[in-house]
Each structure stands twice: as C-alpha cells, then as structure tokens.
C-alpha cells in the first residue's frame, strides 16, 4: 500500500489538524447563536417602531439591550460573511476575479459590522 501522507505528518501522528471543518462549524455555531438573537432583533425593531432618537438612546442605554445588540451584530456579520464566501466560491470561476470579489465582500462586511458595533457602543454610553 502506498502511503499518501507526508513523513512529517506521520511522525507527528496528529492526523488531520481538525481545521478543515472550521468554516462548517463556525457557520453552524453562529447560526445557533442567531436563533435567539434574530427573534430579539425582530422584537426590538417592533418596540422601536417610529421611535425618536431619544427613545432609541434610552433603549440602547439598557445594558442588556447593548450587549444583545452587540452579540447580534457580531454573530450576524460573521455568519453572513461565511455564507457569502460560499456563494462567491460557487459562482465565480476565474481565480483572480474570485479573490477580488472575496476581498471586497470581506472589506464591506467588516466595514458595516464595525459601523454597527461603534454605533451600538455610542448609543449605549
């Protein structure tokens, strides 16, 4: 039988580094986190229907609301970035274009994620 593993890999004897499923796991864990957080988001939007900025400030100044919104935004942007990555990998065949679109998507997701985080923090304090 021909051994397909590298000599170093055999010597270390650690098998796969278990990082191959990282993307899959991260997508599921953020999905799980987003189940309660999405319901909280819908409830918040309902409660803030037609609210003034003063009411919004009062809402976000509640520590629980600030924390839940931060958790929501972090899980949401992490999750959507993982999902869009798969969509880009599936549909863009040319490697250069795929890399460019991927970087643009990551930058956009990172930018708006940070914008949301800073805004929630500013509203909370």
């Amino acid at each position, binding site marked *: 039988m021909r051994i397909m593993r590298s000599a170093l890999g055999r010597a270390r004897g650690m098998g796969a580094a278990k990082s191959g499923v990282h993307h899959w796991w991260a997508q*599921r864990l953020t*999905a*799980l986190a*987003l*189940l309660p957080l*999405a319901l909280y*988001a*819908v409830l918040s939007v*309902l*409660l803030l*229907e*037609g*609210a*003034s*900025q*003063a009411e*919004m*400030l009062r809402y*976000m100044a509640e520590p629980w609301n600030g924390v839940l*919104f931060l958790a929501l*935004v972090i899980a*949401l*942007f992490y999750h*959507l970035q993982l*999902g*869009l990555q798969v*969509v880009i990998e599936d549909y863009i*065949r*040319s490697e250069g274009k795929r890399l460019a679109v991927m970087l643009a998507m990551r930058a*956009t*997701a990172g930018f*708006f*994620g940070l*914008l*949301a985080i*800073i*805004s*929630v923090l*500013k*509203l909370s304090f």
Partner: protein
Amino acid sequence: MQDVREALMQGRNSTGGTVRRPLSPHLQVYRPQITSTLSILHRITGVALSAGAVLLSLWLAAAATSSGAFSVAQAIVGSILGMIVLFGFTFALFYHFCNGIRHLLWDAGVGFELPSVHRSGVAVVVAAGGLTVLVWLVGLVLL
C-alpha cells in the same frame, strides 16, 4: 483553455477529431421540486439578508449620528416603500430562520428520509409565512 476543468471537457469522436463533450443536464431542464426550490430560496434569502444587515447598520449609525439623521431614517422605514421592503426582509428572515433550523436538524442527522424532507419543507414555508403575518399584525395593530 482557461481552467483545468476545461481539460475534462475535451474528447475525441469516432473520426479522431476533437470534440467538446456535452454537459450533463443542468438546472433549466429539471422540474423544480420542493427540495431544490427551498434550497435555492435559502441562499437567495441569505444574500438578501446580508443587504438587510447593511441597512440595519446604517439605521444604527443614523441613530448614533444625530436626532435629525435618525428621524430621516425612521421616515424612510415608515414610508410605503420602506414598509414593503421591511415586509420582504421579515419574510426572508423568518424563512432563513426556519429553514436554518431544518438544516441544523439535518446536520444532527434528524429528518433525512425523503417523506420527512418534504414535510419539513412545507412546514418551513407555512411557519415562515405565519410568523411574518403575526409580526406585522402585532406591529400594525397592537403597537
């Protein structure tokens, strides 16, 4: 040839000339089924909700900027067009939410048999529609 996968498409006919091998049937020739349709819808709603996340962060940023900026944002959300868009996002969210639970159950090895896949598919669409209507009834009537 731009892609290594192209090499697999090259074949020879009986006279020895090179031919481009035919592709296997793709999306357009298959009858849409609940399994494939809901799978595609999960991806479409996911992409749409990503745009929704950008709007959510703009809404939060408007609130953090000034009371004037936030009242403009709230007026846009409360306009007819804003409400139609928000209604679409509500359904997209609840669909992705319910179908996401279905996916998590599959990941746990639950409900893989074809009859239960069909049943859970119908349940997801009904639940997403029901939750969307419920939230909008609460929003428009009770609050």
